[in-house]
């Protein structure tokens, strides 16, 4: 602590925080009501008081690599109690958004994802790509079948003699997976690279500020700690401690389970399709299908409740980054279930259209995962794991 810290305020950073919903940050007069009010801040150098002054001074270096910004669940207790209306919760959210962009590469993409004006492009790219895929499936099926036959693989997954409507007849599952598997892999690589820097930064920050009892970072132990916090995350134990926005914890939990469920279902059907060679659509009596349907409903419910919450809450600032994610999640759930329902209802062209839109949403989810607010599930998980590892209390 005795080392000198040369403060070099970054005016651009301040403007960035202001633009991302932290426009109140300069109102803080450091009374620390927020740190006292926060139900989940640790006792030793609690947040968000110190983050507030660092932000108002534009000290980007003190914030981006600070694990504490991820311990915050933005429940809003601090914002409600702040005597100055400085909304620390919103400021923390804005800082997190900057941190996500900071660790994600390439930067251009990160900027675009958080920029409202770039949204049409972000939608146009998958729309054109998926239209091309549909074109290939619908009009070039025979040609593709010939090529596949050369390798001894069936091109058609969904052709049940034309009696059953299968989305694979519109966009081949080969093409879908050929799009999304590399996309997801790329995202995971981006995450991996970001996490490497993130972990070393948060450790350095913790050592510098006396927030850990570990001098050297042990990756193995960190991984073990991260696994140990998974039950906490699954039960939303921290989130539930929040006072102001307690209801949001339930909605968020629905979303989490919805996504986990969908991931499991997708995984199982992936194996069923490619290992066992059984193409869909699968019977509604199949328990995996039940899980898929329940997960879809959970996502829609969770997203709807969160949207309702945000619209009703006047105290909380909602910016593009928040609406983008909520719209994405809600869209995913609705189009997913709708495409199933229209398929079962026999509305062939309608179901193709809905499926097409659904895939655009999926594309957005996978491709922009490390750049959007969605990335929080990685950083927060690691930060919670680090807090556990570092004995942050």
């Amino acid at each position, binding site marked *: 602590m005795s080392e000198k810290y040369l403060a070099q305020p970054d005016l651009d950073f301040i403007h960035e925080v202001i633009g991302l919903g932290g426009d109140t940050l300069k109102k803080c007069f450091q009374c620390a009501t927020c740190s006292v009010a926060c139900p989940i801040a640790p006792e030793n150098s609690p947040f968000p008081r110190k983050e507030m002054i660092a932000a108002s*001074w534009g000290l980007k270096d003190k914030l981006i690599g600070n694990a504490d910004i991820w311990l915050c669940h933005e429940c809003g207790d601090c914002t409600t109690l702040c005597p100055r209306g400085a909304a620390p919760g919103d400021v923390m959210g804005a800082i997190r958004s900057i941190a996500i962009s900071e660790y994600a590469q390439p930067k251009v993409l990160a900027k675009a994802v958080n920029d409202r004006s770039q949204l049409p492009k972000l939608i146009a790219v998958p729309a054109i790509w998926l239209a091309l895929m549909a074109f290939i499936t619908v009009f070039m099926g025979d040609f593709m079948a010939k090529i596949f036959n050369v390798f001894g693989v069936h091109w058609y997954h969904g052709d049940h003699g034309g009696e059953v409507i299968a989305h694979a007849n519109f966009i081949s599952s080969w093409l879908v997976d050929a799009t999304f598997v590399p996309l997801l892999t790329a995202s995971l690589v981006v995450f991996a690279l970001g996490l490497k820097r993130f972990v070393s930064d948060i450790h350095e920050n913790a050592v510098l500020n006396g927030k850990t009892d570990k001098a050297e970072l042990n990756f193995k132990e960190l991984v073990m700690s991260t696994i140990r916090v998974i039950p906490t995350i699954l039960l939303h134990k921290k989130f539930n401690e929040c006072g102001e926005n307690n209801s949001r914890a339930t909605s968020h939990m629905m979303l989490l389970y919805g996504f986990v469920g969908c991931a499991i279902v997708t995984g199982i059907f992936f194996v069923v399709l490619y290992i066992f060679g059984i193409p869909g659509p699968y019977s509604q009596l199949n328990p995996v299908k039940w899980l898929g349907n329940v997960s879809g409903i959970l996502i829609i419910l969770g997203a709807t409740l969160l949207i309702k919450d945000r619209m009703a809450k006047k105290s909380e600032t909602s910016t593009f980054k928040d609406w983008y994610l909520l719209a994405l999640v809600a869209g995913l759930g609705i189009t997913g279930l709708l495409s199933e329902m229209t398929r079962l209802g026999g509305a062939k062209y309608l179901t193709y259209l809905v499926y097409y839109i659904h895939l655009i949403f999926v594309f957005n989810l996978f491709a922009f995962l490390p750049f959007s607010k969605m990335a929080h599930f990685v950083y927060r998980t690691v930060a919670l794991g680090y807090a556990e590892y570092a004995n942050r209390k």
Partner: protein
Amino acid sequence: MGNKLGVYICTGCGIGEAIDIEKLSEIPEEELINFKTHSCFCGQEGVDIIKKDVEGGTNAVSIVGCSRRVNFDVFKFDGCVVDRVNIRESVVWPMSREKYPAPTEEEKGKEDFIDPIQMAAEDYLRMSIARLEKVKVPEPYKPDSFSRKILVMGGGVTGMTAALDAAKVGFEVTIVEKGAALGGYAAKLRKQMPVKDPFESLIPTVVDDLVQKVSAEPKITVKTGTVVARIAGQPGEFTVTFKNPGEKIEFDVPFPLPDEMKVDENGKELDNEAQHVKYQEYNKGKKDILTLDPNGELYGAVVLAAGWRPVELKSAELAHLGVGSIPDVVTNDQFEQIAAKGKIVRPSDGKEAKNVVFIQSPGNGSDNDFDYCGSVTSMVSLKQAKYVREDYADGKAYIIYQHMKTPGLQENFYKSMQQDPGVFMTKGEVVGVSQSGKGLLVDAKNTLLGENLQVKADMVVLATGMVPVTVDDPVVNLAYRQGPGFRDNAIYDGYADSNFICFPYETQRTGIYAAGCIRRSMTIEESMEDATGAALKAIQCIESANRGVAVHPRSGDMTFPDFFFQRCTQCKRCTEECPFGALDDDAKGTPKPNPTRCRRCGTCMGACPERIIGFADYNIDSIGSQVKAIKVPSEDDFDEPPLRFICLICENDAYPALDIAGMNRMDIAPEVRFIPVRCLGSVNVIWIKDALAQGMDGVMLLGCKHGDNYQCHFVKGSELASIRMKKIGDALSSLALEPERVAMHEIGIDEYDKLPKIIGEFVEMVDALGPNPFKGF
């Protein structure tokens, strides 16, 4: 004295239940004094009863009931002295019948039955009758010549505002300004802090507007390039001599002889005439204070708005901040001058100063701000931070403070400055400023950012304070015997002030009202408000002096000290001890009273060893007779006579505290008889000696706190009393009386809860000493 007395015993508010009214009535009855009882004298019916008697010739009424602090407006009768016998708050309420049971039918007849409540009530009534026999209906003092003009010293924002406000209500005003033009310091600013709602952004200074208004006002005369040589006389008839700055004239004010010149070579004090000769030598070429300038101008009251100057920083004490060694470390005053010229540039090389650190406190192990700082320096740093941001889009202004003071709605100004992304603030202790290449480095510790903080700067600004010009210059140049300036101003760090909490604008000289930065460091907004207050005080002074009544704090008091000069020994104690310099002694040492300077505290009366000073309704005899009227129980009357004490209690804070204790039914020792006094300064030791000689077991003095944070309404009263009480201790020892029998306590008006304990402990302590051996003689 020929007063026609009337006694009115009220039986309401629980008095009738606790007191044997019939027995109490025997007192006036025996003295053949007209008395009446009623269950509610403060009601219309009760008041009418008294009024009828007053119309019938009664000119001194004793109202037995509630405290003088209530219903004073109800019991007000023209041409009649009113004495209030406080048996409600002082007897019936604090002494309960549960603790001191009333005598049973059987006990009633017994001579030796001790009923403390009845005894107290009877004593208080006897005291009142004794007092009323010794006082006179006061008649006002009216000066021979009288002026309603107001003199404003200082032509800055404060002075101009005061002049405009006084002129607005019809008073003739003269502004005297030392400089060549009106405007003062505010004329040198780039911008100023807001003066009205919403208090959010900087505005051009108000100076031009004020100068225009002043020159358009026919009731205001402006004398620029002029100073006051002397102000002689008293409120209502101040004779003022003006001169050019630096000029030497015969009406320059003389200074009193320093103490070391008042003694001969052996250290013995010179007699009055020898001192006067020395005084004339010391002030050669200047006329004595009692000589009035025939060409002087007459004024009724003075508003002192002479302002301030920036503190000169001592490089020895502030070397760690680079004071005196680093040219780019400047004061806020120097920074303002740079800002007024144009863009902010460094003094060292004239380059743009985009990073400026404002240091509010010198640090070095202390969290004090710079000397003579106040909230205004906090505000100025915010204002000047804005200059940096106005001049440069990428400018950064840092404020490192120990205290950020933004009083009142100026908080809005702080909030709006805080909103600027380029303004950075933290609490912290500055460790040092050092040169690093062409720039500066500022080090601070214990900041809100946690660690040892370092900031790069192009320039450092120190928040130096505002020194009142009265710090080393009398400024007002009063032709008063006590000297031309304000006394004991060191306890206010040189500010022209009197009792800061209760009496804003009051100085220690009646008729001189201070406003603006001469009173404390202030913003322009505060100074303007202050100016209005001081102008109103000046008007109040004129409107009181013309009717012969006191201005403050005994507003409306018609009495004034009366001297029986035949017996004066020219000891000068009254002249020297008067907290307001109201007395000017002549060459022989005989005091010349200046009644309109007087605040009627009675300090002169307490000081006078010959006891020749008194007021119409408050004098040595009136209090002395009250003391004598108290019955001291002795062994002749009772087997175990109760102790008896008097408590001389200051009516300003201690007496209200006693009333509050009574209202709260707190148990107060029934052995003590309280006698309200105007100020402990007015307590003459003869009363104490007489009380002890009479057999009283002890004497208590209760007054206001003295010392640096004094609460004495007359500045010096309780301090003088404490000195006198120390001296009386020796006299008591020579009488073989324990000095502990006389005690003085200081109490605040809010400390009523402590009063019963203080009094109770004193009673117990004296009880342990045993009864006064003089009892019964």
